[in-house]
């Protein structure tokens, strides 16, 4: 070996790499990491579009017809729980579970006082339902016509993966039917039989729950969600589930 010539060879250490080369290499690494993290934990794709759109779908972009939607006028909820009672009665919900419930929050307001906020919660009938994605037996799916996330009890093996996947804690395991049960906007018990509203909507004395077809511009849900100046929000938008249950104080 010509030891003397070695000193004249081009070094192979990283410091001699052009910075463009280094950047490309790091980009590949980050992209691979991003893909493996599922795109939601560390996403390299732009979220600008998602933020600009807001929780309410743009008018005309409703995949379902009727596009069943519930709007909850949160500030009117008084936790009388007549909705829960009606739901239990209508859908034979056992005492250890619920299809809809009321959560409670307390916050400080001016004057050293506290304000209570009651938050009705139910299945959000998501456009991208995490529960459907994880079901190994296709016992739950999104109805192609109405967009309601429905269950077929005979297919359910009770693995409860859907319960873990649901961002809204809206599913429970029914010991009697040996299947996971959930809100279906009263499709089975009422809507399919010609009723226009779920039982909870009918029972609410404070007009908190408004139900209807978002694709119909004359419906109350459409009007509530498209009132000028009104603020509309959904629960846990960061999950990307695209829920169809909206909250407002209008």
């Amino acid at each position, binding site marked *: 070996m010509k030891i003397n010539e070695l000193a004249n060879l081009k070094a192979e250490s990283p410091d001699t790499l052009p910075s463009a080369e280094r950047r490309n290499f790091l980009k590949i690494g980050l992209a691979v990491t991003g893909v493996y993290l599922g795109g939601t934990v560390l996403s390299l794709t732009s979220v600008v579009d998602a933020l600009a759109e807001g929780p309410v779908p743009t008018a005309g972009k409703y995949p379902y017809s009727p596009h069943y939607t519930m709007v909850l006028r949160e500030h009117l909820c008084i*936790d009388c729980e007549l909705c829960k009672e009606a739901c*239990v009665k209508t859908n034979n919900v056992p005492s250890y579970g*619920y299809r809809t*419930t009321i959560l409670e929050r307390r916050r400080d307001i001016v004057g050293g006082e506290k304000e209570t906020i*009651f938050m009705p919660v139910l299945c959000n009938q998501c456009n991208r339902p995490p529960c459907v994605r994880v079901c190994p037996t296709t016992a739950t799916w999104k109805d192609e016509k109405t967009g309601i996330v429905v269950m077929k009890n005979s297919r359910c093996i009770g693995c409860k993966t859907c319960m873990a996947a649901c961002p809204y804690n809206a599913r429970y395991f029914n010991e009697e039917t040996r299947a996971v049960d959930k809100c279906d906007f009263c499709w089975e018990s009422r809507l399919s039989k010609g009723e226009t509203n779920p039982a909870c909507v009918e029972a609410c004395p404070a007009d908190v729950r408004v139900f209807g077809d978002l694709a119909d511009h004359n419906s109350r849900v459409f009007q509530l969600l498209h009132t000028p100046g009104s603020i509309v929000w959904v629960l846990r938008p960061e999950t990307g589930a695209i829920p169809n249950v909206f909250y407002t104080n209008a």
Partner: protein
Amino acid sequence: MKKIVAIGFVGAILFSYLLISAADQPAVEQEPYDEDAYGPEALIIWNEPVKGVFFSHQLHTMEMGLDCESCHDDLFEMEAGAAEGQDDFTMAAMGDGMYCGACHDGSMAFDVNSQCASCHQQPEDAIVWTKPVKAVIFEHTTHSEDMGLDCESCHDDLFTMQAGAAEQADDFVMASLYDGLYCGACHDGSTAFASDTRCTTCHIGVRGYARLMGEAETPAHGAGH
């Protein structure tokens, strides 16, 4: 001249000392309360038809000088709780000269329809209504002490003093409040916050009710799976 001033000064000091020491003297010993002559020493407390009405024998006999016969047995039987059992043991009857109303007529003693708090103790605990919806809370102390309202501000025009009376009425609903009935008399948006705003100030809900009654945090169909 100087001497006179000095004597006056010493005198003033002495006089003030006397005054101070006199104040330190034990007060004249009170006459012992004789239950045989004046009736039971403990307060009589009625809880029917409304809770927390007090009567002091000592005040009426020993201090006002009434005899036992002034009230017993024409107005009140001596048996404890006898009056409470009567259907006519009400403010209306007293206004007609029965029971306390025999004297409390506005001339002999203050009128029964004045000075409510002389006999009625305002409830310290919150009033909780569970009809027509569960559950609505009312604090007497917030309204009387913090807001400075009198008993007459609400009783008996807006609310009778009988516990649960409003709940029995068919018109004890929000729509009535908007028409100025019940709480709506003040909660109209000008005197106090409008009754169609700040719902949860009074509506504590099923959860708040359970908490108040000391029940478990998660009742049936609760928030946990």
